[in-house]
């Protein structure tokens, strides 16, 4: 149930964050670090908020699918945000190992 909401909202977030990352990559003379920093920053801020905004705009009615299973909107959003954190942790560890 939660995974479905995560996938539905975060598809846009990931795509949007990759696009902003690509812009940063090009703008910073093809710096991979600029891409990664911008990608992660967008994933947790603007991209995340925009994904929720567009979900609200397009699929607002589907919230009743989750409400009927006891998930409030706030709970869904909080859990989705928390589900992104392990991805960030993996990135930070990888970054340390690689030495970026």
């Amino acid at each position, binding site marked *: 149930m939660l995974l479905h909401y995560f996938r*539905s909202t975060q598809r846009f977030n990931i795509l949007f964050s990759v696009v902003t990352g690509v812009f940063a990559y090009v703008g910073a003379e093809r710096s991979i670090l600029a891409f990664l920093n911008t990608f992660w920053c967008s994933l947790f801020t603007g991209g995340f908020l925009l994904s929720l905004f567009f979900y609200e705009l397009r699929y607002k*009615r589907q919230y*009743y*699918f989750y*409400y*009927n*299973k*006891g998930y409030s909107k706030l709970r869904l959003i909080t859990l989705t945000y928390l589900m992104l954190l392990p991805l960030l942790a993996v990135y930070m560890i990888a970054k340390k190992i690689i030495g970026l």
Partner: protein
Amino acid sequence: MKHLLEVDSVQMSYGTKELLTDVYLKCETGDITGLLGRNGSGKSTLLKIIFGTVTAANSNIRINGKPCPYPYKQKDQIAYLPQHRFLPADIRIRKIIDIFIGAKDAKQSIKEHERIGPHLNKYVNQLSGGELRYLEILLLLNLDVKFVLMDEPFSGMEPLYRERIAELIKAYRHTKGFIITDHDYHNIISTSTQIMLLTNGVCKHIQSLDQLEQLNYLPPGTLAEFY
């Protein structure tokens, strides 16, 4: 086991318009409460207040005597069928059943249902309006909840599906209480065990069908067909 849902002192305004002034209603396991009312009388809003997704200026919702201000946040209390479709369109019906229904036997019985079985590999937007409404209702009825609120379950349905939906509701009556609202008063009257009329912001218990004409919900003479 019998359960009791009580809703009282519901007050709700939109701007200067007082929509609900002092609503009281009660529903027990086995009850099918038909909630009638004219357009804009606040039926849908009242159901959402009971479900907990709309906050009223004042409301008192109790289940089995215990205050329950947001019943939808507590599992196994209330399910709600909104007027509009609410199932996700990006996954197949088989998957929807898998993630929405917890109990294994309930999952299996829905998948083997004669009217759902043939559509398991379809997406909800490939179903007709009647098939989709039937699926939505069947899913909600298979949740382990005490009460089910239904906003216009018969709306826009062909007569055959209206009959099937009414049969479905009656089949689950022994384990749940229902509050149903619809403009299709024929089906509400024939399906319900008690009828309430929401008028001027309050719920009036209809003891005799004549009251629906006396309270200007139905034009005079409409009820002749029921006698």
